[in-house]
């Protein structure tokens, strides 16, 4: 597969997941702000923006600003609208590789944004819409794409992004209200994990158990450990499809090393240790994801660097 196409596939996976997870995080935070009168809107919004990587926020921010920066504003790189636009642009570049149904669901999602239908939707409904579109895209990919390299890159992108975003979700829960159980309940809900969590932990919601579930659960598909595991599998498939070459000792792929190390650290350290400073821990997780992306880029996409465009006409 062409390096350039592989890179596009990787980023389709990432952008779609980013749009979905941003919607999930916003969903929790906006409903918390509405429900909990004791929260300071300014502080909560600042906390949220900094975790989502918006550094240049003005001194006074309110919910409307946050929704603009993280959802509607197509010019803000952290917004859902921008993520969908970028996913579609990547898909356009890899269009001959994508299945037709997959291209069409991505394209129609994007059409809703450029046509202004997206901007007309209001806060809670919009998050549901993003989740549904993302489920449609992922489901269509799952149902129509061959499990070749392109697929592995797509899933790899999705898993790295998911590990990154779940870590941000955990960080927002820990930061914004010091981790009341209400906060954790809605965080779990945002992941669609609340019922699964209740069954697994028999109803005791605390910072410790909720964080453990979202970080370490091996069976829940949005947990950090689960995502890292999948990402490692994808890398292993990409490195040696159908062979056992390199199986004797260690890993030669830098991304695989980084992700494996991060995962084993989470799994083998004591929970108390991990939970002690969740925000810092989660920030390290995000750094690992960024480094792993760099490593994947160097290993697989080298030479696919963007070049300046020159106009050309054809008959």
């Amino acid at each position, binding site marked *: 597969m062409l390096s350039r196409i592989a890179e596009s596939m990787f980023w389709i996976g990432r952008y779609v997941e980013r749009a979905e997870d941003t919607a999930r995080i916003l969903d929790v935070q906006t409903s918390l702000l509405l429900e909990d009168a004791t929260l300071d809107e300014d502080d909560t919004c600042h906390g949220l923006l900094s975790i989502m990587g918006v550094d240049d926020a003005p001194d006074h921010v309110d919910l409307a600003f946050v929704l603009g920066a993280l959802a509607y504003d197509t010019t803000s790189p952290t917004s859902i609208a921008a993520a969908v636009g970028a996913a579609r642009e990547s898909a*356009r570049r890899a269009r001959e590789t994508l299945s037709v149904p997959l291209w069409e669901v991505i394209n*129609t999602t994007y059409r809703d944004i450029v046509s202004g239908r997206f901007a007309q939707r209001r806060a809670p409904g919009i998050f549901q819409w993003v989740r549904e579109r993302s489920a449609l895209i992922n489901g269509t990919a799952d149902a129509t794409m061959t499990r070749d390299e392109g697929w592995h890159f797509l899933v790899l992108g999705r898993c790295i992004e998911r590990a990154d975003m779940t870590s941000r979700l955990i960080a927002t829960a820990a930061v914004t209200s010091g981790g009341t159980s209400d906060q954790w309940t809605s965080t779990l809900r945002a992941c669609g994990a609340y019922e699964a969590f209740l069954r697994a932990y028999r109803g005791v919601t605390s910072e410790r158990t909720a964080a453990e579930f979202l970080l370490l659960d091996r069976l829940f598909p949005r947990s950090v450990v689960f995502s890292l595991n999948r990402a490692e599998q994808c890398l292993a498939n990409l490195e040696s499809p159908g062979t056992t070459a390199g199986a004797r000792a260690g890993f030669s792929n830098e991304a695989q090393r980084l992700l494996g190390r991060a995962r084993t650290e989470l799994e083998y350290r004591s929970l108390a240790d991990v939970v002690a400073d969740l925000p810092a821990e989660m920030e390290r997780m995000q750094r690992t994801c960024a480094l792993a992306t760099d490593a994947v880029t160097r290993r697989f996409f080298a*030479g*696919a660097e963007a070049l300046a*465009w020159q106009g050309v*006409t054809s008959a």
Partner: protein
Amino acid sequence: MSAMFEGYAGTGPAYDEMFDGRALRPPYQRLRTSLQALTQPELVSRVEALQAGYLDQGVTFDIGGEERAFPLDILPRVIEQATWASIDAGVQQRVRALELFLTDIYDAGQVFDDGVIPRRVITTSSHYHRAAAGVRPPNGVRVHVSGIDLVRDNAGEFRVLEDNVRVPSGVSYVMTNRRAISSALPETIAAHRIRPVAAYPQRLLAALRAAAPAGVADPTVVVLTPGVYNGAYFEHALLARTMGVELVEGRDLECRRGRLMMRTTRGLAPVHVVYRRVDDEFLDPVHFRADSMLGCPGLIDACRAGNVTLANAVGNGVADDKLVYTYLPDIIRYYLSEEPLLRNVDTWRVGDAEAREEVLDRLDELVLKPVDGSGGKGIVIGPRASRAELDELRTKVLADPRSWIAQPVVQLSTVPTFVDGALGARHVDLRPFAVHDGSRVWVLPGGLTRVALAEGELIVNSSRGGGSKDTWVLAGPRTDRADDIPPADRSDRAGRAGAAEPARRPEPPEPPPATRETPGPVLADLAEREQQQQQQQQQQQPTRTEGAPC
């Protein structure tokens, strides 16, 4: 009779393809009958669905970086079998002659010595590339893909307006238009027997594979695109997808020791045939524009070394030159010893002194075209131009007469078109596409009909606000359906019936009754009942015999 076409009238002297005065022309009989039941609001809603569908599927083209849905008119253009047969033969003839001509001028140049065309016409063409001289394509083909633009004059005769043997575009819309119209007008499609267009990518791939360098048993074919910002990117992606080959950009390619490679996730992989959609000037910074980022340094040398085939070959543009066009009838006679089957539009070479005088006198009634233009750029239509424009043109023509040709204003034929909620006559042209695989020239039945959407407008290019129409080439009548052909038609077609009868596919064996092995606990009860019903059904049904519809 039909409310739909009531009040429709052709404009001026132009040939209307549907109506001859008030009388319906035969090819359109079925079309009108099948559309009769359609009410205006229903038609409008189908038009809207058509456009929304193109946006959702991303069937777009770019104007100045903005993506727009490719405009497609809902009413198809119908071409009868006999008319098509003559176009088909004429295009084949033309492509064969162009092929021989290009091979000759980049080699010995016999055609110059025999005085058919002056050598300076070729050497002064901006598309003549010395870099292409002496490069012999592996199977002798230079014009793998061509698009010959045709117009229909006032008498209804198809004439050649220009040749495109560089990188003709638009074929993807022929395929998507057919699919879109099939879903917009299913009843109408069902009432006709239309020759399919979907086979194009397979034909093209076969031709590209046939052009591979000698000794390569399983060649790697790629489509080379300038990138997503190119106006025809949609087409490049569609062709790559439907041929099942990689779509590459210049930066994906690299030349090593006279061989072309592409960068993949597993390192460099060899490439043997490049269907390039990048213009000559941008292909190889070593030979052409040094600032090009769209090509790959060393590509031409790899081609010359015989390690990679470029389709279409470099330097073909010289045949698109409108001055060379004026010599084409002689070129056809020279190489093939045949009379041209498709005539050119009457043309004056402004470079010739006596012609120049006449042209300058009649500047306000002629169409002036730059010889190396494409996409309708630079064309001045005399009767529509202002005094100032004509004066400017006169200066330009006098400064460089070699760069201009003049033609009378050809009234392109008209076809009913649905614009702004009403039917009106609009001018159309036709670009049939031909694929040459080295042994024969295959012409895609139909081609791209472009339509000028503004009333009276004669320039149909999509970059100038033109639309398109699905173009139906009718297949021969089915013998078993002869009774629903109107009597007037029957005598006309009877002679040909049978010749075009397609081989009927044998009846596939009856599949075993569908049963689910594991219906699941809830469905199990239901499925059991259904099976019983199916078995009862089968007892009532006699075994199917030959000839049953499949």
